């Protein structure tokens, strides 16, 4: 036994060539590893640097109760107050409406593309959806400003067309292609054997879809919606331009609102580095970071849930 081990070692020794290619190989391995963990480093970096700028505010002037319960975001008044409730309401109302508009259509489109469409039609629809997802957010904002705004004023006879409705529709149109793509992937991940088994039992096509495919793809579909919510929540330019940017807790979809993201975008340029206002904006950034982190983590766990079960 011992002799065999020794022989094996000698053999391995002969194989072992610590020459230049070996050295380069090791070096590359290290470099590639650094690249590999760069994603982790950047996420940590983002958290560290926005906290570094915002921490001064959190430790001194930050009032948790005010932040979450006061609707008054008045950073430039003589007695500045930093209540983010109206901003949260703005973000929530716009994102909520966007999801209400786009979730049914996105899932419907995903089911059509994944389960009904075939061949050329399917390919073209997928390409189209992918192209729609590529339209930049500032262009969406501009569409809200210059096309949706007059449309809403005329259609509903309201004085201002930059409101929850406008931003919600714009955001819905923006999030829909992403949700459609992810939901379609989830449907595609359901093994064909499931469909065949159900059809063999005499189920009709729509029974297969509703009783077999959708339940099997449930987690993926939930993840698609979650990622859509994350997208809407974090969208900046489109919401800034289409929502009216008025500090307001909305009563109706025709009220103008202001979103968390938009507030940072609109105010950061006017603040002095290191001032309370500047730091408060970074605090909003930390809040946004944490929320999106939770949304993404949940989506990831939900997707992982199905994978482990299979």
């Amino acid at each position, binding site marked *: 036994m011992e002799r065999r081990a020794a022989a094996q070692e000698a053999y391995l020794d002969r194989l072992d060539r610590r020459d230049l290619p070996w050295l380069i190989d090791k070096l590359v391995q290290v470099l590639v590893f650094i690249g590999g963990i760069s994603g982790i480093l950047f996420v940590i970096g983002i958290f560290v640097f926005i906290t570094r700028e915002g921490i001064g505010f959190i430790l001194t002037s930050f009032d948790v109760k005010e932040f979450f319960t006061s609707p008054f975001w008045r950073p430039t008044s003589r007695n500045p107050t930093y209540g983010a409730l109206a901003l949260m309401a703005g973000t929530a109302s716009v994102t909520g409406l966007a999801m209400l508009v786009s979730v049914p259509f996105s899932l419907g489109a995903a089911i059509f593309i994944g389960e009904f469409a075939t061949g050329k039609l399917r390919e073209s629809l997928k390409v189209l959806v*992918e192209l729609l997802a590529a339209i930049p957010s500032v262009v969406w904002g501009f569409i809200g400003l210059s096309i949706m705004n007059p449309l809403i004023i005329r259609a509903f006879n309201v004085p201002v067309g930059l409101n929850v409705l406008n931003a919600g529709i714009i955001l819905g149109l923006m999030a829909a292609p992403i949700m459609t793509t992810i939901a379609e992937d989830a449907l595609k991940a359901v093994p064909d054997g499931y469909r065949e088994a159900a059809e063999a039992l005499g189920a009709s096509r729509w029974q297969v879809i509703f009783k077999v495919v959708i339940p099997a793809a449930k987690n993926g579909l939930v993840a698609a919606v979650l990622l859509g919510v994350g997208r809407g929540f974090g969208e900046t330019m489109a919401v800034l331009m289409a929502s009216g940017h008025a500090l307001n807790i909305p009563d109706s979809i025709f009220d103008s609102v202001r979103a968390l993201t938009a507030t940072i975008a609109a105010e950061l340029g006017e603040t002095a580095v290191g001032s309370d206002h500047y730091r408060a904006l970074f605090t909003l950034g930390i809040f946004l970071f944490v929320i999106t982190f939770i949304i993404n983590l949940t989506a990831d766990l939900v997707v992982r849930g199905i994978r482990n079960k299979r």
Partner: protein
Amino acid sequence: MFEASELNERNRRTESLVRLLFLTMTVLLIVPVVLILAVLVYKGGRVVSIPFLFTEPTNGMTAGGIFPALIGTVWLVSVALLVSVPIGVAAAVYLSEYAGDNWLTRLINLAIINLAGVPSIVHALFGVGAFVLFLGIGVSILAASLTLAIMTLPVVIVSTLEALRAVPQAFREACWNMGATRWQTIRRIVLPNAISGILTGIILEVSRTAGETAPIMFTGAAFFLPFLPQSVFDQTMAMSYHLFVISTQVPGVPEELPFGVALVLITMVLAMNALSIAFRMYLRGKKKW
């Protein structure tokens, strides 16, 4: 025996109804956007011309062209690519060729998902905190491009990863059996076989980067700057920020002018995207294994 029963008939009717319903939903999702784009093309088309592309804005940005913004976007995208492509490809090579199925890989994947999911304005805050202030680069093309590079890193990683994974494992094994090291295998076999897929991802990243606004607002984009940037430490105008500025911040801009800017921006972005998709389809058709 094989005649359609009443149940079959009913099922068939229901099915075509359901099909129609989902088709309608798909159409309702796509048609409004196509109509909106048509309006953009119609209104913007009257503004866009060769002189519009190659002259600078005049009269307090209420007239003239977009040349400095166009060149600025080219600068921003190029510098961002120089940073993100090497890092992104390295990350993808690690994930595809080295990483095992362990907690670190899971953590990396989670980080990539998060990097893609963090709001763009938070990336902007990061850019201000890390590059403009901490590293002291100041408001410049470099700071803006670094911010953009980190934000779009997931695009490069995900598409490169897909390209690398499409290279059959047998290719690698054959190469290892010849006594090649891991790196020799990657360099001579894996990367050459995946290069077109990687390029597809890079084109996609160009399209993403060119359209971003929030990350460059406070890190490098200038409100109005009639000169072309001379180095990466200069500020610059950019197409996306220019569209924001003239449609919200400048009084007295003629209604059509921003439509022209939007049309040029969206043409750039969609053309790049379409190119990437076409390239991908061409590759899929050509695949030998």
